[in-house]
Structures are given as structure tokens and as C-alpha cells.
């Protein structure tokens, strides 16, 4: 901090004021000297005499007088040369020099002024007035000295504080500033900042705009402002942090003419604050957040979760048998182990797929807020600030346990430890930080009781549910990998002539233990875990392959409908997947129909329209599934390039029972026909429903009345029969 050189301080200290200031009178005319001497001594000065310029310089060097009276024309060395000499002596730059000259000699007056004369007295000198003139010069010299001292003190103060001041003229944009301003900004010798824009140019890219905007606003509002920003450091790659304070300067009319302010280099202060913060909030051994930091993070997470009705989990863990490592290998080894453990914890928590990947966009944000903290000893806490499901926490716990149990190299020794983890989940296991911490701790002790190197949720129910879902997830994964999923098919018919119009492919999971698992159970799980993507691709390929197989087996070509999940729609490259399926199967694209729900399309209507257009360009058909259950935004409907609407089964169910549903179905059909859309009624189960739909000129029907979904072989037989039957009807057999 203290870089103040003694020299620069010397500039500040004014010479001690003499009780009787010394006047050096230089004149070759002894009478002049005599006459002046009396008057000056009476006025409180001590007087020294010199008879020529050369003697004057010697006298000056010896006595350092406070003022010099100098005759112009003298033998040996004249006054001009003497002034020039004195000005070059130490302290001689600022001594007042009063030159006595003839009125007639204008050239010599000009010359003397250029040599640095302070004032003139004309001959013949009025010696009565002389002392007053000398006193006046002394006073003005003291004022100038005081100003210089003050300026110099200010310079020093600014240099010590690393604070520079500036003025910005709003009419010319020009800037003026103190020396320290340049140093703070890192200007090198000769560099200047002449206007506000040049000043802004010194600021790093990321900060420039905000300073610009803030200043503009302050000028407009005539308000003071302050801001912190960084400038590049001229010596290295670091930046300097600078705080700027500014105030508008307004004239009486209210017009703001200038901004005035300071800039201060606060790099050291900011670094010190960071260091203090680090000491207070981070663990010295591992560099992880400590208990204080964790508590703060926990409070914040709690507040956020309450507001957003979110979930988060606390993992409380310690190392099994850590004490043995400390006791046998020493504390340094123990510290080393703790450091390595922290590293693994951090990388597990940062690692990819531990949180449900359904909302990948939120993932990064959520990840950055996860906290690994060391409470002390061998105790750590992992705060997962956003989990969608308890098994997300279980998965992290499992990975932590796995990672921690890998062997360590501690000072050349192979060391193994395991960890036991207790998990509490907000809000199920507590709604305050204290309770959540306590319950995670309790859960850890339960886990220890039931054998170390494992994890345990505080709530038994959560624990079991998590395990169940967890196992279903891994089973679903292997089911997809092993192609244990199958497709079933449900036919649709034209209401007008009863002919089969198409087939919808539906997925089924035949589980070894549970039997057939309903899509409503595993599709949400597949969507949350991202498994829907490979699953969706498989369905597309299988359905198109099957239809092409039927066609090749001699069946009439039919449209095959495939459902598409919102996750597929927004996260995968649907178009590529469809293309691939068509290419592999060889199916005519116009025989493929993709069913989408309206709510999916309305999530992002522009994106929806764009993808739909791409689909249409492939030549495939698009149907809106479950129509009527969402917002059914009719205004958007006409903008969507779709071919079909499928009326949701809930409306069809009460046809003939509920007049309202009749009206809705009728309206949907009329509207669709006006928009040139084909209408399919889903869930048709009775003849009565079928007849009403027929009356409304609904195009197609699907449901148990026609057929249950069937496996491929059964479907094929059904189709053969239906087609043959129809052909017989048409041919009049």
C-alpha cells in the first residue's frame, strides 16, 4: 500500500516560514540599495545586497531568499541572465522576482517576462511604495505556495486512496481529470482520455454498456449515480475493479452542464472482501462451502422451493471408519483423503444425468445451485436444490456411494473408505432447514444400522416409492433395450360406408412380474427420464415396418397412426426420426399419420407450426389427438397445417345422454368440415353413438364397437376378414 516516495512527500511540505523573510536586492547602484534597505527593513524584511547578476546567483544559492529585487542593466551579468539562472536553482522556480526597469525599454520588459519575472517596477523607484509591493508579492507567493501544497496534498491523497476525479462536459463531451484518474484507468505515459466515449472505451466489454446506460439515465434525470466496473490491467491479464461515483452539475436555470465524479481502484478491497468471504464461508481443508455457507444456501433454496412449490433434497453423509485412517496414517493423510472425497462429491453432483432430464433447459440452472458442503470432521452435506422426484436423490446417493468407495491413493498407500448417506426431502420430511438437517442426519444413522455403505430416506414411504420407481425405470430401460415392448393396433372405419380407414398403433409393456403395464403408468416415467426418445423412435420404426409388411402381404394400404409425446416433439429431431422410419420401412409417407395433442402444439405455437409444416413437407398426415380436452383454441386451429381432428372419447361417451356433449360434438364436426379437416370420433362403444355421429356426418370412428386393440397377427386376420367382408358387400355377395 505504502508506495509514497519520500521525494513526492517533500513536494508537499512547504518550507518553514521565516519570521523575517529575506529579500535579495540586486543593483549596481549603491544609492538604490541604501534607499530600499531602510524601507524594506522597516516593513519586516531582512535585506541582502548583490551588485550584479553573477553575485546574485551565488547569494541566492547560499541564502535562498524569499524574494528577489533585480535591476535589469548591470555589469558582469545582467538581470535577465541572472533570473534565468535563479529559476534553474532548487526552489528557484517559484521565488517571486521583481524587476526594476526603465519605462522606455519595452523590449526588455517583454524579454524579462519571458525569463520568468513576476512583476515590474519602473525607474525611478519610489522607495516609499517598494515595501508594499514586496509585501503584496510575498502574500501572493504564499498563496501560490499554499495552492501548490494543497494541490500536491490532494495528488498524494488521491494517489494513496487510488482515487481520481474527473469532469465531463455535456455540451462538448470533453473530459478533464486528475493525474490519479489516469493511473486508476491504467493509462500509460502520453495516453489520454479526451472525451466520454474514449473513457467508455477503456472499460471491458461486459461492463461498458451498463456504465453507458446508467450515465445517460443519470444525465437525463439529473441524478447522482455510482457503478462498479472493470478495466483491463496494463501489466497482466487481470482486470482492475473500479468504483465510479458521479453527480450532475446544474446551472441556475436547472440545465445540467457537467457530470463530476470520482473513480477509485477498489481491486484490493474487493479481493480482500472475497478473501474474508472465503474464510467465513469456505472450509480451509477442502475448499468446499462450510456450514455457514450451507445454511445460507439452504435458507435460499427453502424460500425458492416454497415459492415455486418445488422439491429439494438434503443428503447427509459421513465416511465409514474415517477415524481409522486418521489414527493409522496421520492427520495429513486424513486431510488428503477429505480433499479427494470432496473432489469426487463435487464431480458426482456436477455430473450429467442425476436429475430428471425431462426439463433439460432447467437442468443447468438447477445444477449450478447444488451445493456440496463440509460440516467438519468427516461429515458432508449435499444439497440438491431441485429434484423432481425422490429417486433423483436416490440416484445421486447411489452414485456418491459408488464413487466414494473407489480406492484412494494417499501418500502412496491404497486406502478404501465407504460412506453412509441419509436423505431428507422437502417438503415431505420437513419445511425448515433445522428439521431437514436433523432428519437427514437421523436417516443416516438408520442407514448405518442397516449396514454401512448405503443410503436411506428419512421417510420409509418415500424410500420404498423411490426404490419402486427406480427399479421400474431401470426395467423400462432394459425393456426398451431388449425390445420387450410391443405394439397393438386399433382399427378405424369410415362411418359413411363402414370400410376400414386406418389403424392406430398403441404401445404395450408386457412385464414378466406385473403383467401388462398400462402406458399411462410408464409413459410419464419415460418422458421424465428421457427414455421416451429411444422409445418413440422404436414405435415409429415398428409401426411403419408393420404396415409395410401388411401391404406386402397383400392387404389394402391403410393409414397407420403413431402417437407423439411432447418430449419427442420439442426435444428430438422428429423430422429426422420420421424420415428414417419411412426410409427403413419403405412405407408410402402419405400412409403415416402422426397424432399430436393440442396442448402440445399450443406450448409454443410458432415452433409447433414450423414443425408441422416440416412434417407436411414429408408428405405425411397430422392429426390432433384428444381434441376438446385442452384449450381448443379455435383461432390457432385454422393456422395449424393439420389434416384431422380426433374428438376426445369423453365427449363421445355421453352422446345420446348429455345434450351438451351432443352440441359440442356437432359443433366440432361442423367447424372441422368448414376448415376442411377430417373428423375422427374416439371411444365409440355403442351403436347409438355411431348413429348419432353418422347423423352429424362425422368421417371416421374408432373404439370398442369396431374393435379392441389387437396384436399384429390378430390385427392382420381381422383386417383380412373386414376387407373381404366389405368386398363381398360391395360386390353384392
Amino acid at each position, binding site marked *: 500500500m505504502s508506495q509514497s516516495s519520500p521525494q513526492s512527500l517533500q513536494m508537499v511540505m512547504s518550507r518553514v516560514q521565516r519570521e523575517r523573510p529575506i529579500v535579495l536586492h540586486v543593483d549596481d547602484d549603491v*544609492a538604490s540599495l541604501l534607499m530600499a534597505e*531602510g524601507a524594506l527593513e522597516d516593513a519586516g524584511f531582512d535585506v541582502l545586497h548583490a551588485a550584479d547578476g553573477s553575485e546574485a546567483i551565488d547569494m541566492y544559492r547560499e541564502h535562498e531568499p524569499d524574494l528577489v529585487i533585480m535591476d535589469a542593466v548591470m555589469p558582469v551579468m545582467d538581470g535577465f541572465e541572472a533570473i534565468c539562472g535563479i529559476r534553474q536553482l532548487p526552489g528557484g522556480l517559484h521565488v517571486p522576482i521583481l524587476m526594476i526597469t526603465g519605462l522606455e525599454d519595452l523590449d526588455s520588459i517583454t524579454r524579462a517576462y519571458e525569463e520568468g519575472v513576476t512583476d515590474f517596477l519602473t525607474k525611478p523607484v519610489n522607495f516609499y511604495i517598494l515595501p508594499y509591493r514586496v509585501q503584496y508579492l510575498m502574500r501572493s507567493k504564499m498563496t501560490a505556495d499554499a495552492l501548490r501544497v494543497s494541490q500536491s496534498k490532494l495528488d498524494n491523497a488521491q494517489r494513496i486512496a487510488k482515487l481520481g476525479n474527473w469532469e465531463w462536459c455535456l455540451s462538448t463531451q470533453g473530459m478533464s481529470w486528475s493525474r490519479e484518474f489516469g493511473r486508476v484507468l491504467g493509462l500509460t505515459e502520453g495516453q489520454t482520455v479526451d472525451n466520454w466515449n474514449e473513457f467508455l472505451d477503456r472499460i471491458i466489454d461486459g461492463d461498458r454498456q451498463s456504465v453507458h446506460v446508467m450515465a445517460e439515465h443519470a444525465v437525463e434525470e439529473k441524478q447522482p449515480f455510482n457503478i462498479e466496473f472493470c478495466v483491463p490491467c496494463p501489466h497482466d491479464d487481470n482486470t482492475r475493479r473500479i468504483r465510479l461515483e458521479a453527480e450532475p452539475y446544474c446551472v441556475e436555470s436547472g440545465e445540467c452542464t457537467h457530470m463530476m465524479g470520482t473513480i477509485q481502484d477498489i481491486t484490493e478491497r474487493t479481493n480482500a472482501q472475497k478473501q474474508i468471504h472465503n474464510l467465513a464461508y469456505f472450509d480451509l481443508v477442502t475448499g468446499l462451502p462450510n456450514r455457514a455457507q450451507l445454511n445460507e444456501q439452504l435458507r435460499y433454496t427453502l424460500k425458492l422451493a416454497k415459492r415455486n412449490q418445488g422439491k429439494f433434497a438434503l443428503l447427509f453423509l459421513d465416511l465409514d471408519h474415517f477415524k481409522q485412517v486418521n489414527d493409522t496414517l496421520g492427520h495429513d493423510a486424513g486431510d488428503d483423503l477429505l480433499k479427494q472425497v470432496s473432489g469426487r462429491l463435487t464431480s458426482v453432483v456436477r455430473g450429467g444425468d442425476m436429475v430428471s432430464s425431462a426439463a433439460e433447459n432447467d437442468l443447468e440452472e438447477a445444477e449450478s445451485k447444488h451445493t456440496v458442503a463440509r460440516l467438519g470432521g468427516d461429515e458432508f452435506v449435499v444439497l440438491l436444490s431441485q429434484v423432481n422426484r425422490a429417486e433423483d436423490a436416490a440416484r445421486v446417493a447411489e452414485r456418491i456411494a459408488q464413487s466414494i468407495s473407489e480406492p484412494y491413493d494417499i501418500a502412496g498407500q491404497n486406502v478404501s473408505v465407504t460412506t453412509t448417506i441419509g436423505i431428507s426431502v422437502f417438503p415431505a420430511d420437513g419445511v425448515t432447514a433445522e428439521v431437514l438437517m436433523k432428519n437427514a442426519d437421523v436417516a443416516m444413522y438408520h442407514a448405518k444400522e442397516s449396514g454401512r455403505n448405503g443410503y436411506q430416506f428419512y421417510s420409509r414411504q418415500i424410500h420404498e416409492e423411490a426404490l419402486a420407481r427406480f427399479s421400474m425405470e431401470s426395467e423400462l430401460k432394459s425393456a426398451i433395450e431388449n425390445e420387450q415392448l410391443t405394439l397393438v393396433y386399433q382399427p378405424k372405419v369410415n362411418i359413411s360406408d363402414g370400410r376400414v380407414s386406418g389403424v392406430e398403433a398403441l404401445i404395450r409393456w408386457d412385464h414378466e412380474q406385473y403383467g401388462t403395464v398400462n402406458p399411462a403408468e410408464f409413459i410419464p416415467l419415460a418422458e421424465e427420464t428421457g427414455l421416451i426418445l429411444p422409445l418413440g423412435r422404436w414405435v415409429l420404426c415398428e409401426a411403419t415396418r408393420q404396415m409395410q409388411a401388411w401391404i406386402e402381404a397383400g392387404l389394402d394400404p391403410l393409414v397407420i397412426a403413431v402417437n407423439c409425446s411432447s418430449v419427442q416433439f420439442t426435444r428430438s429431431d422428429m423430422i429426422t426420426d420420421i424420415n428414417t422410419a419411412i426410409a427403413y420401412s419403405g412405407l408410402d409417407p402419405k400412409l403415416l399419420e402422426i397424432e399430436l395433442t393440442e396442448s402440445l402444439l399450443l406450448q409454443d405455437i410458432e415452433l409447433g407450426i414450423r414443425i408441422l409444416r416440416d412434417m407436411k413437407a414429408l408428405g405425411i398426415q397430422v392429426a390432433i389427438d384428444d381434441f376438446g380436452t385442452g384449450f381448443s383454441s379455435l383461432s390457432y386451429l385454422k393456422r395449424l397445417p393439420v389434416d384431422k381432428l380426433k374428438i376426445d372419447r369423453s365427449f363421445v361417451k355421453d352422446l345420446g345422454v348429455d345434450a351438451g356433449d351432443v352440441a359440442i360434438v356437432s359443433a366440432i364436426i361442423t367447424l372441422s368440415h368448414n376448415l376442411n379437416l377430417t373428423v375422427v370420433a374416439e371411444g365409440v362403444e355403442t351403436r347409438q353413438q355411431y348413429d348419432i355421429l353418422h347423423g352429424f356426418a362425422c368421417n371416421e370412428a374408432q373404439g370398442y364397437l369396431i374393435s379392441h386393440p389387437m396384436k399384429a397377427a390378430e390385427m392382420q386376420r381381422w383386417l383380412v376378414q373386414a376387407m373381404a367382408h366389405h368386398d363381398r358387400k360391395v360386390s353384392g355377395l
Partner: protein
Amino acid sequence: MTSYIEPQALKAIASLQRPGKPDLLHRIVDLFKSESPSAIDAIQQGLDADDLQAVGNAAHGLKSSSAYVGARLLSERCRELEAAAREDNHPACYALADGVEDLFQASVDALDLYMTKAA
């Protein structure tokens, strides 16, 4: 009667007198009387040696010292001589230098008279 000395100048010197100090007016007048002849010699020598700068310098000094004691005519003559010397005007220098001696003598006489009266 031509006034070779202006009494106000001498009064001004006397006014600078401080109590208990040597008589300033006497010292100034004595200095004028003792120092001036060498300046007058210098003027003459300068003319003899055709060194007008020396003439000018000597005239410059005498111009000032005579002005202080109120020898206005002498001072005025020295001013003209100095100016002529600086302009390198030889004839003017000769003409102006001729009579400096007389003016000095007349001024000294007037000073002596004034001092006698003042005493």
C-alpha cells in the same frame, strides 16, 4: 533661475530615514558626489575609445543615481545620451556628453546649498 535639484526627491530620501540610523540623505548625496565622477570618466573614456556601449552603460547608471537625488536635468541628459549610445549615434553622443560634467557640477552645487540650508 534654473533648478538643478528638485527638493521633493531629497525630501523623499529623507522620509526613508530611520531613527538611530546613519543619516541616509547625507550618505546618498555623498555617494552621488563621490561615485558620479567615475561614471563621467567612463563616459569620456568610452567616447575616446569609440566604445558606445560603455558610454551607454555609464550613462545608464548616472541616469538613475542622479534621478534619485533630484538632479533632473542631469538625469534627463544621461537618458538622452544612453539612448543615443544604444542607437550608435556618434555625433549625438559627442554633443550630449559635452556638458554632462557641467550639469553634474551645477547639481552638486545645488545639493550642497540644499544640505547647508537643511542643516
